[in-house]
């Protein structure tokens, strides 16, 4: 606050208007983005930091050692963060709930390597002709804004295809570009069909569509093409420049840095998209689609555009994710619900509709899972599986009692809490539950000494999904705006209150 004021005040003193404007934009750039810059620098230096902390090398000869391990983990986390950002674009900013996002994620790896493995010559000429035909058709028939955007996108792809010399067989970059095109085409097709559907039908359709491809890819019928449940091995099809496995020559480090660059580009691209006129319409659609339509916007077009954009980001993330796979295989799991649920979780926990929320959640949760992976703890359980985790059952029963007897307990609770407000009430109930459960457990512990209890060692990684689910439920119930969202609102309300106080001070004589 103070810093900003002093900086802007000193800039205002500059005489030359052009210089002043330049200084102002520079200042604004730095002041608004210093945090992001710091994060990027930290990410860049991350391998070195880990190396210093753990006493390992940043580029050892063989891919062992803390630093190299964490390079790949961080890279994977960054890619998942990009996936989460793309999901947030759909869900948080456009209000589209897709349960089939994994389709685009997995498609990246699969299409790229299926083409590379099965296609034995470069279809570059055919691709160029096809693309030119499509561009021509669109240029003739499409509406002005469609034309502009499509020609831009297609022009970009053409450039890529042209720059790479016509090789005798398909190169990785061509395959990846085609995967992106394919993904865009898929979003286009599915969007045209599904965006006519009312909200809930749309969501279920996307679920079914993704499920269908997952089943197709996993089935044995197409084993020759997709490798079925074992996945598609692509070992030596990966160009050396992008191969993170040799670590001695710094390939992994280089790939890591490339991933950071990708991450930053995706972040900036999404931010640019959201701040553009198109982006504002998207948010308007999320708030009230009916109204946006009556104002005159073709909401269908904008939603389709966002779907394609998000799909492309997901596909590119998918390709990158596969590059980092340790067993050099593309697994059908990439198309499964896991990679739809994870970005959904990250978006919700981080903060729907915030730019950094999903990133924070994705990085935090992925890295956290890796870090805690080998931790274990022991629990006493009995023979009858879940039923005999009697402590659990007792706590559950007590919780039920408290829930159902809420009305009867209410006067007592309110007398206890007074004017406390919602959080104190929740706290009171929680306290009551804990107290009653503890009592019941203590008493119960005396009564059931003859249950066959044995110690079971539980791995954190086993329980991770459960833990994630519980965190998710808690966040949905208590922090509807996610972690970052609640944080933002907290600071905003503070600022607003400070301004209100200032205003009142000014008003009072």
């Amino acid at each position, binding site marked *: 606050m103070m810093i900003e004021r002093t900086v802007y005040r000193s800039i205002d003193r500059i005489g030359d208007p052009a210089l002043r404007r330049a200084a102002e934009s520079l200042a604004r750039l730095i002041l608004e983005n210093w945090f992001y810059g710091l994060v990027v620098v930290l990410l860049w230096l991350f391998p070195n930091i880990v190396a210093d902390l753990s006493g390992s090398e940043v580029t050892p000869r063989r891919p062992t050692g803390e630093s190299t391990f964490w390079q790949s983990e961080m890279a994977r986390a960054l890619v998942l963060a990009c996936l989460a950002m793309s999901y947030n674009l759909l869900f948080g900013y456009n209000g589209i*709930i897709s*349960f089939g996002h994994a389709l685009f994620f997995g498609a990246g790896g699969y299409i790229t390597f299926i083409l590379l493995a099965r296609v034995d010559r470069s279809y570059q000429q055919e691709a160029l002709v096809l693309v030119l035909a499509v561009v021509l058709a669109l240029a003739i028939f499409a509406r002005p804004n469609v034309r502009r955007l499509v020609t831009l996108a297609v022009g970009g792809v053409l450039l890529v295809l042209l720059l790479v010399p016509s090789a005798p067989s398909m190169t990785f970059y061509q395959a990846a570009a085609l995967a992106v095109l394919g993904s865009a085409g898929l979003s286009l097709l599915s969007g045209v*069909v599904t965006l*006519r*559907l*009312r909200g*809930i*039908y749309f*969501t*279920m*359709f996307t*679920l*079914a*569509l993704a*499920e*269908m491809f997952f*089943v*197709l890819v996993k*089935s*044995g*019928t*197409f084993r020759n093409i997709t490798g079925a449940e074992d996945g598609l091995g692509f070992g030596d099809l990966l160009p050396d420049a992008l191969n993170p496995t040799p670590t001695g020559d710094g390939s992994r480090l280089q790939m890591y840095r490339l991933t950071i660059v990708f991450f930053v580009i995706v972040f900036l691209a999404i931010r640019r998209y959201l701040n553009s006129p198109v982006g504002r319409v998207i948010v308007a659609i999320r708030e009230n689609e009916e109204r946006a339509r009556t104002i005159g916007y073709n909401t269908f077009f904008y939603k389709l555009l966002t779907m394609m954009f998000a799909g492309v980001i997901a596909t590119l993330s998918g390709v990158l994710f596969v590059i980092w796979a340790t067993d050099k295989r593309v697994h059908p799991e990439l198309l499964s619900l896991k990679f739809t*649920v994870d970005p*959904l*979780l990250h978006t*919700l926990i981080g903060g729907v509709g915030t730019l950094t929320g999903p990133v924070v959640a994705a990085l935090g949760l992925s890295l956290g899972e890796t870090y805690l992976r080998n931790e274990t703890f022991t629990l006493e359980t009995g023979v*009858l*599986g*879940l*039923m005999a985790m009697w402590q659990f059952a007792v706590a559950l029963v007590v919780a*039920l009692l408290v*829930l*159902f007897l809420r009305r009867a307990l209410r006067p007592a609770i309110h007398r206890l809490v007074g004017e406390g407000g919602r959080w104190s009430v929740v706290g009171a109930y929680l306290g009551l539950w804990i107290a009653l459960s503890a009592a019941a457990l203590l008493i119960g512990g005396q009564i059931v000494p003859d249950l066959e209890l044995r110690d079971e060692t539980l791995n954190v990684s*086993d*329980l991770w*999904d*459960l833990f994630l*689910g*519980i965190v*998710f*439920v808690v966040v*949905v*119930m208590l922090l*509807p705006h996610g972690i970052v969202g609640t944080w933002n609102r907290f600071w905003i309300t503070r600022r607003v209150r400070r301004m209100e106080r200032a205003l009142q001070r000014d008003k009072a004589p």
Partner: protein
Amino acid sequence: MQTYLASLTPQHRRSWLLVVVYVAFLLALSWLDFGFNTAGQTVFRGILLGMLVFLVASGLSLIFGLLDVLNFAQGAFLLIGAYVGYDIYQSLDASIEVRFLAAIGGAVLFVAAIGAIMETGLIRPLYERPIFQIVLTFGLAAIFLDLVERAYGRNPKQPLSPPPLLDEKFTLFQQSLSVYRLFIIGLGLAMMIGVYLLLNRTRIGIIIRAGVQDPEMVQALGINVRRVFTLVFILGSALAALGGIALVPYQGATLEMGNQFLILAIVVVVIGGMGSYEGTAVASIVVGLTRAVAEQLSLEHFDAPVLAETSILLLMIAVLLVQPSGLFGRGE
């Protein structure tokens, strides 16, 4: 009958026509391709599957119709019903009949209790935020699956033996089948009729149907709609659990069965139309038949079950293209 046909909208009339034509097509295709007996067996299997799917789908449809919540945990309810029923059956020390009945009763009650807690404790507070409600059921489904896996392990459970009364064999289309299959069909049919009677002949049924249309108005008439919501949610979860435990003597219990039936139920509800009871009933049979015929086709011609699994989804896509709000939905 006359009044029912007369009261149909043109859209619904067309849907009935499509359904009849499609089913006739499936029957004819089976007869011509597989021969009379195999076709008969396939149709029987299809109806059986349809009844099971109906149990899960009717809950999904009712819950969505009244609460506007897409309960993704329906599949998990089926799963829990199956595993808990299995557990009870194995743990009791009594005659088969008693164990069987206890398994059914216990499974249904257990899941109904979970449903009650879930609705009152987690879904109701989120009434203002429907998106979160859907996402919540999704998350809970994943949690439930995880819990069941933790408690019972990954290995599939072998089918239990039904009581000897239900294990008699009979011959249908030259195939020896257990009477238990008829039991499942009977159960499904009983539920179909039972829920229909509930919706159309009881006061609570009137309230539910009114609530599907306008819950606010029902509230303004002096009826505590929220209690009805909980009731419907409990009913939906109980039906799914019934489907789950009914399956165990037929096919055993696996961890995937929850999701498998959830997808089928979702397809049924989308095809039939959200919130439409007749739609769900009709679509269940259609989906069951389609799946059975597709499986038989793949078996005979392609030596792989892939076609079967995608056939359902293709059917859904086809229906949505023709009728974006489902065959018998309220096309608004």
